[in-house]
């Protein structure tokens, strides 16, 4: 509840409660669960909450934990946005909306930069740029649904033999066949 700024920022807080306050797990177990959570898709905070809740209290513990993570902020969100929508047509409120759009743009830009940096760390500059351009062409110019592209990439990752050099060739083949 206190973790502003999206799922990843709540992890240290979850850690403090689970390992520190309630002693449901030790440090090693917690970091194992976290590492695994990161290799799976979807939001990390609810995955952690669900899994730890399940270990501590079975199905009911899982439901409790997920609801506790998700519900308070969704209610807040509904409260704010529905009251906001009632006064939407007022010119001042329109101005407020306009003022926020570029800020969200900046936040999105910094997130983009994070992911580009991670791409570079993972693949190096050459392959990174190649992959970025490849996915740009397939998704934005050929208008392939991003789900198909990401699904294709995941299949490549699983079926690929463990030699890294093959990434390039197979991605090329993939984008051509799409």
């Amino acid at each position: 509840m206190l973790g502003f700024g999206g799922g990843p920022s709540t992890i240290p807080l979850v850690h403090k409660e689970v390992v520190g306050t309630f002693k449901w797990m030790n440090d090693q177990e917690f970091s194992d669960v976290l590492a695994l959570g990161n290799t799976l898709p979807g939001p990390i905070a609810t995955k952690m909450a669900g899994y730890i809740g399940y270990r501590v209290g079975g199905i009911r513990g899982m439901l409790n934990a997920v609801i506790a993570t998700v519900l308070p902020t969704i209610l807040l969100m509904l409260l704010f946005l529905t009251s906001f929508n009632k006064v939407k047509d007022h010119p001042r409120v329109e101005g407020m909306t306009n003022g926020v759009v570029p800020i969200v743009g900046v936040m999105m830009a910094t997130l983009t930069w994070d992911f580009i940096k991670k791409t570079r760390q993972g693949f190096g500059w050459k392959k990174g740029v190649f992959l970025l351009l490849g996915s740009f062409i397939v998704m934005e110019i050929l208008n392939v649904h991003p789900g198909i592209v990401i699904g294709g990439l995941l299949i490549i990752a699983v079926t690929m033999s463990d030699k890294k050099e093959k990434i390039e060739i197979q991605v090329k083949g993939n984008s051509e066949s799409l």
Partner: protein
Amino acid sequence: MIYIQIFIAFFIPGIIGYGGGPASIPLIEHEVVSRYGWMTTSEFSEVLALGNALPGPIATKMAGYIGFEVGGALGAVTGVLATVAPSLFIMIVLLRLLFKYKESPKVKRLSMIVLPAVAVLMAGLTFDFFQTSYFSNGLWSTFVIAMVSLLLIERWKVHPAFVIFGGLVVGAIFLS
């Protein structure tokens, strides 16, 4: 019917959004704005702005609110369920199996290989936001607000919630 659509719109980002909640934002946008047309880009950015200003995981907040807008309370439940359930299910069922292959390069590669695709999607969304702002605010206001908020967030580490609040005030005074 609408509930099936809501489920699909959030199930896809939930199952392929590697890299945590933020990675699924452009995927959600693709479904909600481009595919189903439930919102405009600027409405979506409002929801995202408020979601960023409030605590808690971003993906479920988006799913809950957009689900509610489109299909009422049941829509909200559907959206959240579609976001949370698939990956949680995998985690609980496959945990033992995954532990075994934790060190396998394949598992590591899974989360790495989608990074460039997600980066491109995010870049596209960034472009959409600036374009929307350019059409409603003009070039200079967009540029000034963007630069100031970039400095505030990145250089002086001001919390995004305050910056968004500042944007609301500035917008109410100058952009109406």
